[in-house]
């Protein structure tokens, strides 16, 4: 909707009262034009589209994570509809390949276009480490649906992470929460004292394994072996032998496929690890791991995906409704849990744009600093629960669960078999 006065000046500020609109119409009529803040503003002429982008792996081994994220963006954009009559375009989806160099390339391509307002992404923390400084420097905002590395935001105690950059937000949980949840489960529910942790050098796996180690030691346990595999490794006997030397009662290895599969397949051949409890995280909460017979018995942590009838207060859609629409539109169930985080992240960005957009004449102005300020204070109910950001961009309600996977021929039962849940 646009308001037209006699001189052809159109303006409106969404989400404010009619009185404010009237005051601003007068101001505009008096000849004042839009003044951009220190980061500048995006000008969207009539007939053009508001540009947002997405980054995530949509080809390759980790496409199972990036593709549902992208679809979450598409669905939220469709559900939200146009802003002040301007439609929103996500352009060509950027493929970040789940790697730092992929994230860097995607980030550079995005910041080269000054019309881009904000980015939904990245999917992987490794991509974000490279993309977030570029996007921050360009004055844009990015909201990740599935980055969980603590380095990207903060230690949740007031200190910024090493890779935090202003303008970065996320609707995924901080892995300090997930690491703590796993540590609490192993220490208090299973009553174990000694654990080992294995990561693969990726910021996500390293951050989560470290968070687990810190929390487990804080709870009085010991972690004698904290080690890593290389991405691409197939022979796990060396790393498992190293782990066995520490005589752990539990092993937490929050790594990806195929390395995670090799670990459970080869652990039977390692003496000393016959009775060890295995735990991993959301990267292995996927079908092609869970259908391995050797994966039976493992505990898998991840975001609480029991969204039920949670409703996104911005678009008015319920989680069950969005999920049904997702299946109908794309012909398959989401292959990873973060489609809902992506939907909420997109709704959040679109609402913030609508809140700060100023229409002057035939042009919409979106002030970049105002957009960041608005995101900092925006609170709403999402599909994933209540969303609101702290000063370092952690916006997730942070609900984490552990499931016990016991039957490789019934994967869905494993995903729903919640044995522990935790909220900070």
């Amino acid at each position, binding site marked *: 909707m646009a308001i037209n006065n006699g001189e052809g000046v159109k303006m409106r500020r969404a989400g404010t009262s009619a009185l404010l609109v009237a005051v601003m119409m007068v101001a505009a009529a008096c000849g004042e034009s839009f003044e951009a803040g220190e980061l500048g503003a995006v000008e969207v002429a009539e007939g053009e589209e508001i540009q947002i982008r997405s980054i995530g792996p949509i080809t390759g081994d980790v496409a199972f994570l990036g593709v549902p994220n992208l679809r979450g963006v598409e669905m939220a954009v469709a559900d939200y509809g146009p802003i002040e009559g301007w439609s929103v375009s996500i352009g060509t989806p950027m493929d970040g390949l789940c790697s730092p160099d992929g994230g860097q390339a995607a980030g550079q391509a995005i910041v080269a276009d000054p019309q881009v307002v904000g980015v939904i992404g990245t999917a992987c923390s490794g991509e974000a480490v490279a993309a977030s400084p570029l996007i921050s420097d360009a004055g844009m905002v990015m909201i990740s649906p599935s980055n969980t590395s603590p380095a990207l935001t903060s230690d949740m105690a007031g200190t910024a992470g090493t890779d935090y950059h202003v303008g970065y937000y996320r609707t995924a949980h901080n892995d300090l929460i997930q690491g703590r949840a796993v540590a609490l489960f192993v220490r208090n529910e299973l009553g174990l004292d000694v654990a080992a942790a294995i990561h693969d050098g990726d910021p996500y796996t390293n951050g989560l394994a470290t968070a687990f180690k810190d929390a487990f030691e804080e709870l009085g346990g010991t972690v004698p072996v904290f080690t890593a595999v290389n991405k691409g490794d*197939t*022979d796990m006997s060396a790393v498992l032998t190293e782990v066995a030397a520490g005589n752990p009662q539990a092993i937490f290895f929050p790594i990806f496929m195929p390395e995670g599969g090799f670990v459970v397949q080869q652990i039977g051949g390692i003496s000393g690890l016959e009775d060890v409890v295995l735990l991993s995280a959301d990267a292995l909460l996927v079908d092609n791991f869970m259908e391995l017979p*050797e994966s039976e018995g493992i505990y898998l942590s991840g975001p609480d995906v029991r969204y039920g009838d949670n409703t996104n207060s911005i678009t008015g859609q319920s989680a069950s409704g969005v999920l049904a629409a997702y299946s109908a539109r794309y012909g398959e169930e989401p292959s990873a849990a973060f489609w809902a985080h992506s939907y909420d992240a997109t709704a959040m960005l679109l609402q913030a744009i609508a809140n700060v957009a100023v229409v002057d004449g035939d042009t919409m102005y979106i002030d970049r600093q105002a957009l960041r300020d608005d995101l900092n204070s925006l609170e709403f109910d999402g599909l994933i629960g209540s969303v609101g950001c702290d000063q370092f961009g952690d916006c997730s309600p942070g609900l984490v669960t552990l499931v016990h996977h016991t039957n490789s021929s019934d994967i869905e039962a494993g995903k729903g078999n919640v044995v522990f849940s935790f909220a900070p």
Partner: protein
Amino acid sequence: MDTFLWIVRVGAIILLIWGVAGTVVQGLSGQGPTGEAWRDLVVAGIAQGAMYGLIALGYSMVYGVLGFINFAHGEVFMSGGMVGFFVANYLWEVRLWETNFVLAILLVLLSSILTSTLVAVIVERIAYRPLRASPRLIPLITSIGISFFLQYTFAGLFGVAVKNYPPPPDSLRSRVSLLGLEIEGSKLLVIVVAVATMVGLYLFVEKTRTGRSIRAVAEDKEIAALMGIDVNRTIVATFAVGGAMAGVAGTLWALLFRGVSFITGFLPGIKAFTAAVLGGIGNLPGAMAGGVLLGLFEGVGPQLVLAGFGIPGVSQLKDVVAFTALVLVLIFKPTGLFGERLSAEDRA
């Protein structure tokens, strides 16, 4: 003699002794891996190394005959493992895998060997033969291109997901007693098959007519041609034999690791090339020994040398250990452990 090289050599030996001594001290004080763990590391290292050796043979044979490194050989290996998966999966579905595992694995082995041989021969015919007269760098670069071509052809045909072979029978997963050592059945089988294949290849090259012509062409292509040897046929035979060895390695890989994907050939390919250089390129017993040694370095080295320095997370550094071992061997013996075998023109 270069003084700098001597300093490097002495320094390397001191570091090596220091690291091993540190590990021994740790072991004596009750830290570090147990005796059984060391045994498992050694066995796993030899099993992995035997596979590197089988792949390394292909690099070495082609280098011996044509004088260039066929970087697509890792993909020749992967193609066998990949097609073997589909055969194994079918045999699992018709339940032959469970009822008669020996027959099933022989069928898988056969399909893997046939595929790898075929891929190697086709690549030679299409990509390398037209470049026979070009400078060596041209087929070398071509082989890198063929490597990518094969990887992404398989990715396009069969998808990017990891394909898991059906689980081997329990008898292979339990431990077998050999000379007082309890060894995992599948690793023992891998080592036995690899050694048998290597012995077979050695006899083939040394005792048969085709083997003799391969050696003659490797020695000097022109003289061999003058002696009535069909050089083209011999080169095809070389690629075929190298491919067959890679096919055997593909099935052994499946027995050990079970997972194959389009990218599976890349790292083993690089490692096998390293093994071939370690043993002395062009030298077949060298390639076999180089493979086993490299596997051992990788398997045991991090725990044996690096752990002694108190470095955490040593197993992630196994590639560092493997390639450092290569550098050290080349510093001490630049032609590899068993010496290079070069053709007449290369020697000149």
